[in-house]
């Protein structure tokens, strides 16, 4: 499964927000959105990932970008995970139908039935501006990659 390519319009999708409401492709309009797909709440690498990204959140969001964390865990597990870590990154659940959104982004890991380790940045126009699929779900992408991608997007002549 290939990760969604830069320049591609985001497909229609629906995820569950922590409050039970829906988060869809319509919610991406008008702002830069960073979707961090991670395998499992409470797993070691995912824990490190959210902690490290939280450390860099002031820099990530300085120009208005919003970061969300996406997994196939149910919202109750995601909320418990986020609260235990004490991190502010809102969780989006791809629980039912399982992995449907992740599959549409090419961010699902079929062999283990889980969200893959992937990052997708969507511009205010609803098109993917950058995407990254880790070599393996156990590889944690450094936050510098996100900062570089956001900076490149800002420098782009087509940036909105």
């Amino acid at each position, binding site marked *: 499964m290939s990760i969604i390519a830069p320049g591609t319009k985001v497909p229609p999708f629906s995820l569950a927000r922590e409050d039970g409401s829906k988060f869809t492709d319509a919610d991406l309009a008008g702002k830069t959105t960073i979707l961090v797909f991670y395998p499992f709440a409470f797993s070691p690498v995912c824990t*490190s990932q959210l902690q490290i990204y939280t*450390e*860099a959140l002031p*820099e990530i969001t300085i120009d208005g970008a919003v970061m969300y964390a996406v997994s196939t865990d149910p919202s109750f597990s995601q909320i418990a995970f986020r609260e235990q*870590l004490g991190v502010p990154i809102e969780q989006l659940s791809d629980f039912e139908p399982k992995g449907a959104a992740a599959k549409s982004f090419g961010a699902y890991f079929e062999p283990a039935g889980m969200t893959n380790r992937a990052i997708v940045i969507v511009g205010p126009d609803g098109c993917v501006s950058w995407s990254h699929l880790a070599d393996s779900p156990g590889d944690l*992408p*450094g*936050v*510098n990659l996100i900062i*570089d991608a956001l900076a490149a997007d800002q420098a782009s002549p087509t940036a909105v």
Partner: protein
Amino acid sequence: MRDLSSLPVEPIGPNDHVRIGNGEPLIVYAEFTCPDCAVAAERLRESGDSVCFRHFALAARSPRAVKLAIASEAAARQGFFWEFHDSLFADQGRLDDPHLWQRCELLGIDLARFEADRRDPALSERVAADVTAALRAGATGAPSFAVAGALQSEFPAASS
């Protein structure tokens, strides 16, 4: 705001903490509450290899780790960085302030000066600068080891 765009691991400079032993110093990013960091530190100490210690203490992971990093810098001001470093890693079950004061007494660190230095913003900035440099180099956890200008989580094969 910090610049967290990608940058290779910084070469060793005059402000680094370097313990001279065998060979070129191995740069290690670590923090004092992390058990794996303690194992790596002991392994390096026993090997007699040269080592350069840099802080990778994340507030999102452990606020105490940040305070300990700053405390180690306060000890460094009195020339006791490595003694304090070894002492913290040798007993990670005793990392509260009274335990630090006991360490000061044992090591011969002036406690009043230590306590005053811990509150000097320059020391927290020093720790934050290490963390920023680590994130720019793509650090995804502690300990991280610099090999050929890049960071890796595995203990380098050449150092054993």
